[in-house]
C-alpha cells in the first residue's frame, strides 16, 4: 500500500456491454458506499440500445459532499472488449485499471496500477450458480474485488442487494457468494499499488437515495393525482411506471377501490388529450414525456391554455432536436416550452433543482394548475429523472390542497344567472369554473378553442377577443404569487452573479466553492425555480454587473428568455451554455467563468 492514501475522493467508472446486467452491480456499489455514510452520486451513461453497445456507469465518491459528475476517472473497471482500449486510455495517471482477464488486448500504460480479474473462472468455479445466470452474476466479481481493494464494507453490499432484490433470499445469496469470491480472490492474489480507498463517514445519515422520476411520481401522488395519460418514451417512462407502482399502495379506498386511473395512450397526442379531458372534468391530471412527445402535445397544450384547463405536464428532457440523443441529458426544451403553442401563449414552468423538489413540485404543481386553470409544465432532465441521487427525505406537503375557483351546485345557486365561465369576478384574471357532473341546470357551459365571451359563447368580435387575451395575460401575472420563488445565495465580496436552474445545481455549487477557495472569486447565485420570472430575478440581475447564465443547451435559451424580459440588462447577461449530452461538471463551469473573468 502506498504512503499517500487518497481517501473518499475519486471516481469509479465501470465499462460494460449494454444489457449485460451490470446495473445491479453498479447500483449495489453506489448504495453500499452511501450506506457507509460517504456522499456519492451515480451516473448511468448508456446508449439507445437494448443489448450490445458500450455503456458506462460512473460513481463519484466525495467525502466533501460534491455530487456533480467529474471527468477524471481514477478507478476504471473494464468488462467490455469493445471499449477496453478507450477505457484504458481514460484512466487518470496514478489510477487503477481493473479488467476481466478473458479480454486479450494490449495494455500499454505503466503510469497506473493494473489489476486483472479472473471473472469467468470465478463464476464457473462456483457449482451453485446455474449456467444461465453466470453472465448476470459475473458482474458481482468486480463488486467483490473493488470491495476488497477499496475497502467497501461487505455488510453494506449485502444490505444493498437485499434492497435491490426486495429481501428475496435466493438472489441475494447467489450474488453475495460471488462478491465474497471476488473479495477473497483479490485478498489472496492482488497487491494494492494505487492510493485510493474509502473509509466510513457519517455524512449520509437521514438521507434517502432515489431517482427524480420516482420522486416526481410520489410527489404527484401526495398532490392527489387522479388521472394519468401517458405514452412510453425515454427518459420519462419510469415516471409513469412509478405512478403505476405506488398509486395502488397509497391511493386505494378502505374497500380496495381506486381513487385514480392510469391510461397508457396510443401516442402523446392522445395522452395529453385524455389529460385535458380529465383536467376539464375536474380531475388532477398529469402526463410525463420528453421532447418528441412535447412536440406532439403542443396542439392540445395550446387548447388547454386558451380554454383554461388545468393539467400538469412533466418534460423529462433529453437531447434534441428530433430524435437526438435519446439517452442523454439536456436542458434544451426551455425556450420551446415557454412558448408552447401557436399564437400568443404564456407557459407556467416549474424547475425543480433537487430530488426533494421533484417531490415537492409534484404535489405543488396541481395546486398551481387548478388555481390558475392552465397547464403547468415541470421541466427536469434525464440526469435528474433516471440517475440515482442522494437526497434529503421527502417532506409531507405543508399546505392544504388548493382546488382553485371551482363551483358546485351550491356555488352556482348562489351566483345564479350571473355566473359566466370566463368572467373575471375577482380582478385577478382567474375566472370560476364548473365541471361535468354538476347537476345544477345553470352549471353547464360549452368549452371551445375558438373565440369566446365571458359567458363562454362563440364570438368573433374584435373587442371580445382582445379583452379575453388581456385577461389571460393578467392571469399569467397573477400566477407569480403562487409559483416557487428563486433561491438566492450571496457571498461577501462577490463581484458577479450566477443564474442557473435544475440539475446543474450541484455542479454550480461546486464551481462556486472552488472559484472562491482556489481563485478568490466569490459569487452570488440565483437558482431559478419557475417561469414567469419572479421580481427577485430582475432584482438579482439589477444588482450585478455580470451574471453568468449556466445551462445545458447550445443556444443559451434561458439567457434568451431573460434578455427578452429584461432588455435593459441584456449586456450584463453572459451565457455559459454547453451540451454534449453528459451531465455537467463543475470544472466546465469554473473554467468558463474563469476565462471570462480573466478577460
Amino acid at each position, binding site marked *: 500500500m502506498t504512503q499517500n492514501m487518497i481517501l473518499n475522493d475519486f471516481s469509479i467508472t465501470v465499462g460494460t456491454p449494454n444489457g449485460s446486467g451490470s446495473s445491479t452491480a453498479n447500483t449495489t456499489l453506489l448504495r453500499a458506499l452511501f450506506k457507509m455514510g460517504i456522499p456519492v452520486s451515480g451516473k448511468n451513461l448508456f446508449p439507445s440500445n437494448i443489448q450490445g453497445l458500450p455503456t458506462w456507469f460512473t460513481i463519484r465518491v466525495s467525502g466533501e459532499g460534491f455530487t456533480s459528475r467529474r471527468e477524471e476517472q481514477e478507478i476504471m473497471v473494464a468488462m467490455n472488449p469493445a471499449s477496453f482500449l478507450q477505457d484504458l486510455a481514460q484512466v487518470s495517471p496514478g489510477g487503477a485499471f481493473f479488467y476481466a482477464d478473458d479480454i486479450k488486448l494490449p495494455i500499454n500504460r505503466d503510469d497506473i496500477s493494473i489489476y486483472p480479474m479472473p471473472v469467468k473462472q470465478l463464476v464457473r468455479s462456483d457449482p451453485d450458480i446455474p449456467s444461465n445466470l453466470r453472465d448476470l452474476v459475473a458482474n458481482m466479481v468486480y463488486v467483490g474485488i473493488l470491495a476488497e481493494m477499496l475497502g467497501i464494507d461487505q455488510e453494506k453490499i449485502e444490505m444493498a442487494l437485499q434492497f435491490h432484490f426486495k429481501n428475496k433470499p435466493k438472489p441475494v445469496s447467489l450474488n453475495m457468494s460471488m462478491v465474497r469470491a471476488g473479495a477473497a480472490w483479490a485478498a489472496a492474489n492482488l497487491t494494492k499499488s494505487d492510493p485510493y480507498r474509502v473509509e466510513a463517514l457519517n455524512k449520509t445519515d437521514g438521507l434517502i437515495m432515489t431517482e427524480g422520476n420516482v420522486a416526481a411520481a410520489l410527489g404527484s401522488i*401526495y398532490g392527489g393525482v387522479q388521472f394519468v*395519460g401517458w405514452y412510453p418514451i425515454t427518459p420519462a417512462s419510469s415516471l409513469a411506471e412509478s405512478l403505476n407502482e405506488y398509486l395502488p399502495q*397509497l391511493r386505494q379506498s378502505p374497500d380496495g377501490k381506486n*381513487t385514480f386511473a392510469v391510461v397508457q395512450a396510443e401516442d402523446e397526442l392522445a395522452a395529453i388529450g385524455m389529460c385535458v*379531458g*380529465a383536467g*376539464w372534468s375536474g380531475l388532477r391530471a398529469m402526463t410525463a414525456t420528453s421532447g418528441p412527445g412535447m412536440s406532439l402535445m403542443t396542439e392540445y397544450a395550446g387548447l388547454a391554455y386558451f380554454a383554461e384547463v388545468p393539467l400538469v405536464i412533466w418534460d423529462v428532457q433529453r437531447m434534441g432536436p428530433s430524435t437526438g440523443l435519446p439517452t442523454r441529458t439536456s436542458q434544451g426544451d426551455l425556450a420551446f416550452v415557454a412558448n408552447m403553442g401557436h399564437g400568443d401563449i404564456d407557459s407556467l414552468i416549474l424547475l425543480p433543482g433537487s430530488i426533494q423538489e421533484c417531490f415537492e413540485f409534484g*404535489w405543488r404543481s396541481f395546486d398551481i394548475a387548478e388555481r390558475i386553470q392552465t397547464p403547468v409544465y415541470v421541466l427536469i432532465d434525464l440526469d435528474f429523472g433516471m440517475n440515482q441521487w442522494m437526497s434529503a427525505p421527502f417532506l409531507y406537503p405543508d399546505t392544504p390542497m388548493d382546488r382553485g375557483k371551482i363551483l358546485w351546485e351550491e356555488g352556482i345557486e348562489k351566483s345564479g344567472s350571473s355566473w359566466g365561465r370566463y368572467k373575471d369576478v375577482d380582478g385577478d384574471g382567474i375566472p370560476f369554473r364548473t365541471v361535468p357532473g354538476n347537476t345544477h341546470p345553470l352549471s353547464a357551459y360549452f368549452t371551445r378553442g375558438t373565440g369566446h365571451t365571458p359567458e363562454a359563447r362563440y364570438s368573433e368580435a374584435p373587442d371580445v377577443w382582445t379583452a379575453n387575451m388581456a385577461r389571460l395575460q393578467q392571469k399569467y401575472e397573477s400566477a407569480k404569487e403562487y409559483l416557487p420563488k428563486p433561491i438566492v445565495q450571496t457571498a461577501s465580496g462577490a463581484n458577479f452573479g450566477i443564474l442557473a436552474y435544475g440539475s446543474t445545481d450541484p455542479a454550480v455549487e461546486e464551481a462556486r466553492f472552488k472559484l472562491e477557495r482556489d481563485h478568490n472569486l466569490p459569487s452570488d447565485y440565483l437558482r431559478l425555480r419557475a417561469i414567469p420570472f419572479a421580481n427577485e430575478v430582475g432584482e438579482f440581475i439589477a444588482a450585478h454587473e455580470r451574471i453568468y447564465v449556466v445551462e445545458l443547451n447550445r443556444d443559451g435559451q434561458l439567457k434568451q428568455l431573460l434578455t427578452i424580459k429584461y432588455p435593459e440588462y441584456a449586456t450584463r447577461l453572459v451565457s455559459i451554455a454547453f451540451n454534449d449530452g453528459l451531465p455537467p461538471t463543475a470544472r466546465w463551469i469554473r473554467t468558463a467563468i474563469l476565462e471570462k473573468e480573466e478577460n
Partner: protein
Amino acid sequence: MSQPLPMAGASAQENTVGLSKNDYRGNPTTLCQGCGHNSISNQIIAACFEANVRPEKIIKFSGIGCSSKSPTYFLNRSFGFNSLHGRMPSLATGALFGDHHLKGLGVSGDGDSASIGMGQFKHAMRRNVNMVYIVENNGVYGLTKGQFSATADKGLQLKKQGINMYLPVDICMEALASRATFVARLFAGNAKQVKEVLKAALSHNGIAVLDIISPCVTFNNQESSYYSYSFGKEKEDPLHDISFHQASEGPQSTVSYVPNKPEITLEADMIDGEIREVALHDGSTIILKALDKDYDPTNRLEALRTLDEAAANNWLVTGLLYISPESPSLTDLYNLVETPLNRLTEKELRPAPETIKTINDLMF
C-alpha cells in the same frame, strides 16, 4: 312507445324526469339550410327527451368541422367540449373518468374521424369508452368548402377538386375491425330510425358508433352520390324496423319478452318470427323487426359481410349492424370508487401524514 311524441311547440309536456323538450334544446343552428346534420341534432333532442335522460348526465364532445359545430345546437344544459380536429376521442376518454356515471355523446365527421382522427377513433373503440360516437358522414369537407374526405366515393367529381382517385374508408367496417361494441349505419333522412337507434345507443354500456349518412346540400348532393338525399331516399335498404323500449318506462305492451335477470342476456334465436330483441345493460330492449333479411346483429363477421355486399351492390344498408351488450366499458375496468372521482376531496386524495415515513424508508 309508452311516451307519446309531443306536438311541435307543446313544450309544456314533461317526460318522466320532469323535463320538457325545450330543456333539451340548444342554440339555433348556423349550418346550411337542409343540412343532414340539423336533422340529426333534432333527433338527438327528441331521443334524449323520450329516453328521459337528464341533460346533466350527458357530456357532449366534438372535434372540428361542420359536424363538430353541431353540439351547440342541442342539449344546452349538458357540458360540452369542442376539442381539436381528430382528437375528440382522447379528450372524451379522459373527461369521462371525471364522473364515471356520465354518458358521452360525441359528434364527429368523416374528415374528423376517418382522416385526421383515424387513430384516436379506433383506439376509442378498442377501449370501449362509454359514449355514443356519431359520425355525421357526408363524404366531403364542408367547412373548408368542399374538398374530398376519406369516405368520398372513388370517381366522385367535385367542383375545383376534380375526380377522387382513392377508395373510400368505411366507418362501420373500421369500427367493427376495432371491436366497437355497438355499430349502426343510418341515413339522416330516416328520422325515426335515427331516433330509435340513438335511444338504444344511449342505453348501451360502452361505445356506440353511429355512422349517419348526412348529405351535404352545398358541396356533395349530386344525385349519383352515395351521400346525397336522392341516393339515400332511393337506395336505402333497412335491415330491420327498429324500436326501442326503455327499461324505466315499465313493461312493454307490444312484446311479451322482458328481461328479468340482472345480467345481460341476448336471445340468439328469433323470438317471434321476425322480431328480435336485444337486451341492454340497463334492462332496456332494442326491438328489431326483420324486413326482407334474417339478420343476426350479434355476429361481427356477418356484419362485415353485409357491409361488403352492400358496397358491391351500391346499397345503403341501414340499421343496427352489430351489438355486443356484455362488454365492460372503459371505466368498468378501473375498479373506481363509487363517488365520482371529481367529487373526491383532499381526505381521499392525499395519503395520510404517517405514510411519508414508510415511503422515505422505501427509498433505501
